[in-house]
């Protein structure tokens, strides 16, 4: 008699926001084998960037790779092209770009926390976090004019400036959010039923994080010190109070907690940016056509985002290569699933913060 049963999950499922399909091989309640299929939303952005769009437009096209970290996509592309053009942005532009990236990180982390709560069966917490998240969405809308796809960064600068009213609003909303995040930290730490669902569940060990190339919050929750913000010098992150945050246990609880603490750090950074904004132009001329090859790494909310741009002095680029952090997270995710209970699968999945649009491009 066959000992195992196969349970499919996806590609359309109540607990999944995204089309991804898993085939779980289960022995009683334990998962012993996983098969993941991620290609449902492949659209072919990379090819279109070199065939149908000019290099000035591509920044807005790659933003549509992923709605959650749109700003990091356009930022990395813009940085790569600016490297090829030999242009270095002034401090005000750098600070404004950092501000948007950090705001984006806050809202993306909050969405992930909300999802983990929902998939652990805590619907009210989902609603609460989504409600608090609107504070950040309002700030983003006020700064850039759109809630999700900002199109804020262009080659040679940013598209809008901060006004004194905006600064006041940022301070007000971030202040309110700080107290809410503090309350959430207490809740995630002390709530007994949440700890049943999170503590010791879905553990990614440090060696596995090394072996399977985990990135971003995943790796940091397992104790692997990797953060592009600390490794590159494209942006003055030390000046605005960046701290590397590490957890050690590597379970869902650690990942949630790491995200919460990163949100606190990002709030501090945003406040520092707004307080110490240098003066200068927000849009400068970056002349010429990209010629040569450039590689850029940026820390997206989910980990290291890698861009390679190659041009040959023409309006059209030769190659745009995008490597997203969510794609690298899949081997680690499969490893974590093995040995877990089937009932925990949605919560584990949500704690990895998957984004299929990034993964499949």
């Amino acid at each position, binding site marked *: 008699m066959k000992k195992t049963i196969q349970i499919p999950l996806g590609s359309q499922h109540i607990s999944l926001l995204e089309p991804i399909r898993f085939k779980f091989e289960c022995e009683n309640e334990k998962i012993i084998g996983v098969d993941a299929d991620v290609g*449902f939303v*492949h659209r072919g952005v990379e090819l279109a960037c070199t065939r149908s769009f000019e290099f000035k437009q591509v920044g807005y096209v790659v933003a*549509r790779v992923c709605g*959650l970290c749109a700003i990091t996509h356009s930022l990395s592309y813009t940085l790569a092209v600016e490297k090829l053009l030999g242009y270095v942005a002034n401090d005000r532009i750098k600070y404004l770009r950092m501000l948007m990236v950090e705001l984006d990180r806050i809202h993306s982390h909050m969405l992930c926390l909300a999802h983990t709560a929902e998939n652990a069966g805590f619907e009210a917490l989902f609603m609460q976090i*989504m*409600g608090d998240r609107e504070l950040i969405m309002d700030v983003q809308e006020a700064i850039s004019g759109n809630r999700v796809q900002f199109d804020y960064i262009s080659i040679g600068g940013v598209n809008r400036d901060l006004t004194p009213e905006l600064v006041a609003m940022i301070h007000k909303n971030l202040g309110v959010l700080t107290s809410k995040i503090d309350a959430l930290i207490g809740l995630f730490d002390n709530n007994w039923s949440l700890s049943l669902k999170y503590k010791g569940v879905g553990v990614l060990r440090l060696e596995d994080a090394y072996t399977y190339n985990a990135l971003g919050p995943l790796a940091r929750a397992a104790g692997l010190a990797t953060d592009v913000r600390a490794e590159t010098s494209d942006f003055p992150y030390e000046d605005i109070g960046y701290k590397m945050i590490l957890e050690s246990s590597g379970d869902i609880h650690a990942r949630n907690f790491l995200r919460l603490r990163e949100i606190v750090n990002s709030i501090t950074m945003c406040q520092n940016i707004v307080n110490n904004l240098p003066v200068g132009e927000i849009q400068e001329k970056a002349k010429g056509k990209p010629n040569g090859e450039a590689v850029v790494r940026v820390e997206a909310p989910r980990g290291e985002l890698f861009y390679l741009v190659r041009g040959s002095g023409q309006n059209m680029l030769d190659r745009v290569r995008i490597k997203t952090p969510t794609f690298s997270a899949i081997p680690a995710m499969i490893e974590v699933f093995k040995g877990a209970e089937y009932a925990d699968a949605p919560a584990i999945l949500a704690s990895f913060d998957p984004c299929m649009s990034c993964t499949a491009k």
Partner: protein
Amino acid sequence: MKFFTPFRKKSPWVLHYNAGSCNGCDIEILASLAPKYDLERFGVINTGNPKQSDIFLVTGPVTYRSRERLVELYSQIPEPKVVVAVGSCTATGGVFRGMYNVEDGIDRYIPVDVYVPGCAASPQLIIDALVKGLEVLEAKSKEIEKPFKLFGAIETIHNKLSRLNMATKVEPHAKD
């Protein structure tokens, strides 16, 4: 409370499917279900089950691999049903138009009742679209509920007796 009377009639359940979107419109749909915009006050609940849903919210320009699932989900929703296409890329392909793996909009595959513009479509627009969708749903259910009466005669089609044309809708009396 006159404003809410139209919405009391039906509490529509929503099925959401991502047919290759960038997730931008998906998180806006989530945001419109969350406390600030609160779609749930109209009785809207997000379900994962096509057999219980009334409104089909689709995002994304339909990728090559999602089309069969899209049509399958659509055909599993019981009548009457309303399809709402959220986002520019769902309506026309938007920024993805012409890419090699996308099909330029969902109306090539399933009939759409309400289009929502915007990249990303804002929650206000999504709420508007759902309210509009409710009207369409109301009209469609009225259409279905119209009584039938056997007026026609039994015919022979292809040498077989057929009762297909016997049933006709009861029309209101002509004003003559």
